[in-house]
C-alpha cells in the first residue's frame, strides 16, 4: 500500500511538470511564430521577440516548484 502511495506521489509530480511544460510549449509556439514574423519585417525586434517568447516559460518553473512540493509529501 505504501508503495502505491509513493508511486501516486511520483506520478502526480510528473503530471505537474508535464502539464505545465505542454502549456508553456503551446503558448511559446504561438508567440514564437509571431515573433519570427515580426523579425522578418524588422530585425531590431530580436530582443523584444525573445522576451515575449520566453515569458510563458515561467509556467514550467511553477510546475517544477509544485512538483518539488508534491515530492516533499513523500518525504
Amino acid at each position, binding site marked *: 500500500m505504501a508503495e502505491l502511495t509513493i508511486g501516486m506521489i511520483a506520478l502526480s509530480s510528473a503530471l505537474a511538470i508535464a502539464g505545465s511544460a505542454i502549456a508553456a510549449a503551446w503558448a511559446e509556439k504561438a508567440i514564437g511564430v509571431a515573433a519570427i514574423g515580426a523579425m522578418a519585417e524588422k530585425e531590431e525586434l*530580436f*530582443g*523584444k521577440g*525573445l*522576451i515575449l517568447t*520566453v*515569458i510563458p*516559460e*515561467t509556467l514550467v*518553473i*511553477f510546475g*517544477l*516548484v509544485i512538483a*518539488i512540493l508534491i515530492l516533499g509529501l513523500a518525504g
Partner: protein
Amino acid sequence: MLRPYEMSSVIMTGPNKFQEDVIKELHKLRILHIVEHSKTDLADIGNPLENANKLSETIVKVRSLITALNIKKGENKFELKRDLPEIYETTKRLNEGVSKNSDELKKIEGLISKNQAIKHELEIFKNIDIPLEDLASYSSLVYFTGYMGESKVMALKEDLSKITKKFMLLEDAVKKRSFIVLFVDVESKEHASNILQKLSFSPVNFTGIGNFKGTASSNLGKIEKENTKLENQRDNIKKQIEKLGQEHKDFLICAEEFLSQELEKAEAPLKFAATKNAFLIKGWVPTGQLRSAINRLNKTSKNKLFIHSEPAKEADNVPVKLKNQNYAKPFEFFMNLYTLPNYKEIDPTFFVFLTFPLLFGFMLGDFGYGLVTLILFMMLKKRMPKAKNFFSILIFASLATMFFGLLFGEFFGYEEIAGFHLPHILSRSHQINELLYLAIAIGAAHINLGLIIGFVNELKSHGFMKALCAKGGWIVLEIGIALLALSYFKIIALPIYIGVVFFLLSLFMLLKGEGIKGLIELPGIFSNTLSYARLMAIGLSSVKLAEVINESAAEMFHGGGFLILAGVLILVIGHILNIGIGMLGSFLHSLRLHYVEFFTKFFQGGAEKYKAFGEKQ
C-alpha cells in the same frame, strides 16, 4: 560607467559655397550625429552634391560586379588611386567585359537546357525502330504516343483487331510500363482512342523532335556530342569570368568602400535644411569633443559658419553612445540586442557585466565544463575577430562557471576523482532543496537590485515621492509578505497584523506610485522571484545528465576489452553534448532573467543609437 557620453546639441549654418568643404571636414571629424531635417514651409531639404548621380550609378555597377563575379569581402592591402574619373573608367570597362561574357553564358546555358529536353524525348524513342520523320501529320493515318501498363498491351492488340486490321503497334517495355506508338487508320480514330482510354493510357506529347530525321538512337549521339561541345564552351566562359573576378577583386572591394564614403558625403545635404543661398545642419556632438570640432570647422569655413551649441535638455530625444570601461564594454552587446537606455537613464551594462556571468556560472557550475568552454572561446575569439564581444562575454561566463564548479565541487559531473572527494560548499545533486532556496534568494537579491536602480532613475526624473512609492512600494510589499509568512508559520514571534500593515501600506504606495497598473502587476513580483528557480532547475538537469553519462561509461569500463573504447566514446560524446545543451540553456536563461525579470524593474530604453557622420558601419 552607468551613464552614456554627455551630448550637446549643435546647430550650424553658413553660405552654400562652403557646404562641400564643411561636409568634407565633418566626414573627417566623425563626431556629428546628424538629425535629419524634414521639409517645412520655412526650409526645404538640401540638394545632393553635383557628383551624386554619377557616384550612385557607379556604385550600383560596382556592387553588381561584386555579385556577378562572386567576390567575398575581406581584408586586402590594395592601394586604390583615389581618382574618381579613373574609377568610373575602370568600372565601365569591367562591366562591359563581364556583361558580354554573362550574356554569352546565358545564351549557351539556354541551348544546353533545350538540348537536354530533346535528349530526354529521344531517349524515350530509343528502342522504337522508326525514323522520326514518320511522326508527321497524315490525312489517312493518326498515331498515338504514350505509356500504358505492360500487361495491357496484349488486350490493346486484341481489341484493336476486332475493329480494324489497319493498325501498327510498336512498343518498348520500361519497368512494368510500356511506351507505345500506335498508328491507326483515320476512320478508326474514335474507336482506338476509346479503347486506349479504357486501358488507362497516358499520352505523351513530343515538342522538340519534330524536325529530326532518322532513328532516335542515331540522333541521340549527335545531340550528346553537341552538348559536350556547348558544355566546354560554358566552362571556358565561366573560367574567364572567374579570372576577371580574381584580377579585379581588390580593386572592386576598395572601390566599393571608397565610393560609398564619397556617396555618403554627396548625399549629406539631403539631411540638411536649405534655403536658396544657405544651409543649416542640426545634430549632436559628444560634449568632450565639441571645442576642438568647432575650432576646426571655423578654420575650414574661414569663420563664415555660425555654430550654436547647448547641453542636452530633459525633453530632447538624444542619441545615446554608451560609455563603459573596457572590461564591461563587451556587455553592451546585450543592450544593442535589446534596446539602448534613454539618455537620462542609468545604463545597465555594468550591472549586466556583474550578474550575467554569475547567473550563467550558477547554472552550468562545473569546473571541467568551464575549463573546456574557456579554452574553446579563447580560441574562437582569436579566430573570429568580428564576434569578439560575444566571445568575451562567454569567456567571463566560463570563468564564472569554473568558480561555481569549485563551490559545488564538480568536475565533469564527478564529485570524487580516484577516491578523492572534491571539497564543496553545496552539492547540487544531493542538496536539491537548499539549491532551490539559494536560487530564489539570488532572485530576490537581483530583483531588489533592479528596484534600487529603478529608485535612482525615478528620483532623477520624477522626484523622491514618486520614486519611493513606485519602487519602494515593491520592497515594502516584499517585507510585508515575508513578515506575514514568518509570523503565520510561527518562525518569528510577531503578531500577524504587523505583516498586514506593511502589506496594506505597500498597496497604497503602489497605487499612488504606479496607479492601477501597479496593483494589477502585484502577483508579478512573486512569479518574477520564483522564476529564478530555473537557476536550480537548469543546473540540476545538467548535473544529472553528466552523472548519467559517467555512470554508463563506468559500466562499460567494468566490462573490459572493446567496451572500454565504447566507454571512452560515451564520455567524450556525452560530455560534448551536455556542454552544448548546458551552454545554450544557461546563456538564454541568464539573458532572459536579465531582460524579463531584472530590466522590467527599472529599464525603459528606446533611445536612438549615436552614429557619427563618416563613421564606418
